């Protein structure tokens, strides 16, 4: 194992969802990671699954970190769509904990399913009971998955698991698999109330 591999394995430990995302990806797949941050997820997928992948990142510092980490990264604004990518040119397109921060949410999910055969979307569940309690107490929720105050948050489109399920039905998207977690533990009972993080494996409905 090279030094970078060890680095990615370590970094991925702090993001439990990375290992779960990896379970939905076939070895050697071609992957596009939207909002790839410093490239940790792609580096991890490359080292564990030999995926071929590109990241997309707008932020200069993140872009530089990704490129320096040996991850191929394209600097562009997701909000402008994915016009630089051919239809069905990727096996999987990933949007990891970025959905809530994009303006053109509808367009981006549709673009993901145009460019990829499958998509993986993860987001913090606004319907999580701790969030609901904070709202009942009269304040905007602040939690591990939503660590921002209302005035400095990049999150503009928060949704609940129930909301996203409906979104998929209305947009002819098939949910192949859904995983809901709290503190890295899978939640099967009342996930919209008890789950803090939602993970969806999607493809266009037949």
């Amino acid at each position, binding site marked *: 194992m090279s030094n970078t591999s060890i680095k990615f394995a370590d970094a991925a430990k702090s993001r439990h969802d990375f290992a779960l995302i990896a379970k939905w990806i076939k070895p050697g797949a*071609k992957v596009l990671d939207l909002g790839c941050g410093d490239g940790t997820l792609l580096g991890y997928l490359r080292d564990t699954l030999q995926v*071929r992948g*590109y990241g997309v990142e707008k932020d*200069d510092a993140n*872009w*530089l970190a*990704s*490129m*320096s980490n*040996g991850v*191929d*990264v*394209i*600097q*562009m604004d997701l909000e402008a769509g994915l016009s*630089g*990518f*051919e239809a069905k*040119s990727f096996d999987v397109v990933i949007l990891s904990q970025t959905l809530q921060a994009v303006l053109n949410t509808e367009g981006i999910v549709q673009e993901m399913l145009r460019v990829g055969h499958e998509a993986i979307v993860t987001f913090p569940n606004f319907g999580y009971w701790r969030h609901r309690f904070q709202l009942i107490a009269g304040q905007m929720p602040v939690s591990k998955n939503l660590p921002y105050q209302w005035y400095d948050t990049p999150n503009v489109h928060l949704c609940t698991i129930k909301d996203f399920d409906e979104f998929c039905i209305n947009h002819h998207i098939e949910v192949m698999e859904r995983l809901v977690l709290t503190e890295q533990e899978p939640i099967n009972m009342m996930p919209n109330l008890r789950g803090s993080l939602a993970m969806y494996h999607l493809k266009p409905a037949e």
Partner: protein
Amino acid sequence: MSESSSIGIVAPQIAHFTDPLPLKSGEVLPQYDLVYETYGTLNADKSNAVMICHALSGHHHVAGKYAETDKHAGWWDNLIGPGKPLDTNRFFVIGLNNLGGCHGSTGPSSIHPQTGKPWGSAFPLLTVEDWVTSQARLADYLGIKQLAAIVGGSLGGMQALQWTISYPERVRHALVIAAAPNLTAQNIAFNEVARQAIITDPEFHGGDYYAHKVVPRRGLRIARMLGHITYLSDDAMGAKFGRKLREGEIKYSFDVEFEMESYLRYQGDKFAGEFDANTYLRMTRALDYFDPALAHDGDLSQALAPAQADFLVISFTSDWRFSPARSREIVKALLDNELSVSYAEVTAAHGHDAFLMQDAHYHAILRNYLKKIKVGGQA
């Protein structure tokens, strides 16, 4: 960066080639010289060579100085040297003057071996492909089979791109900076105005002005003034000159009133004094002609299908002559071929010329990318 220093005193060298060079136009250059400079040391397995391709008015003097008293270092000295992004402690860097140039490589002002007079109008039109062929021959001459990287900005970026098509096995990395897969109509238009300024200068004499012991200085000056405007952004010019008046008040004349005019005239005069008009005509034509997709029904992805290199593509937000959208066309074609490519869109105010500037983020990109390039042991 404090740890970086200049390459120091450098000297140009001449490589003479006697193998005729068949050109894309159908003409043949019977023999030719290429003037070049090298910085750093070629390592034992010759795996650390980086070639720098120059832009329109460039040459081989990329880094260092010819004498301690030189006011200016090579044109990309901020990038190349010990500890700099293109670290000459690791890399063996080659800069060369393209064929058709006027800084020592065989060009229109060179003496034609058969006539004993300057080539002038008889010097053939060259293309980016021709340059790349001649550059590959220079690599052969230096005993280099494969370049660790080919690097170029603007017209230099086009050459870097062409290298990956013409000699895919000979390039491990290509840095294509502020470039485009071909010129837009607007760009061709600018080039045509520049050429017309030169060709219609009464002292042009059909390109054979050398015999008349004159140069079409006025035409070249206007061509450069026009070019200069297009390489800067409106914001950069505004920040530097704005509407500042030369003498503090308007004098109602056609003399220099605004600082901007003074600057343009200075740049034009300086250029007309040191650059050859025939070279300028040919370099702009090479820009116009470059279009690797042409032979593939306009399909750039097909044109780049032979490429094997890993790519770094960089554009600058305020570059309106080679806009980021044009770089994204290159990136898309590379993605279509599933090549390794990273693309950065650098926020910069300086327009097209930004690629020559010392911008912290831009240089961090180059530094970190070049650091990843593997080279063998030192000689």
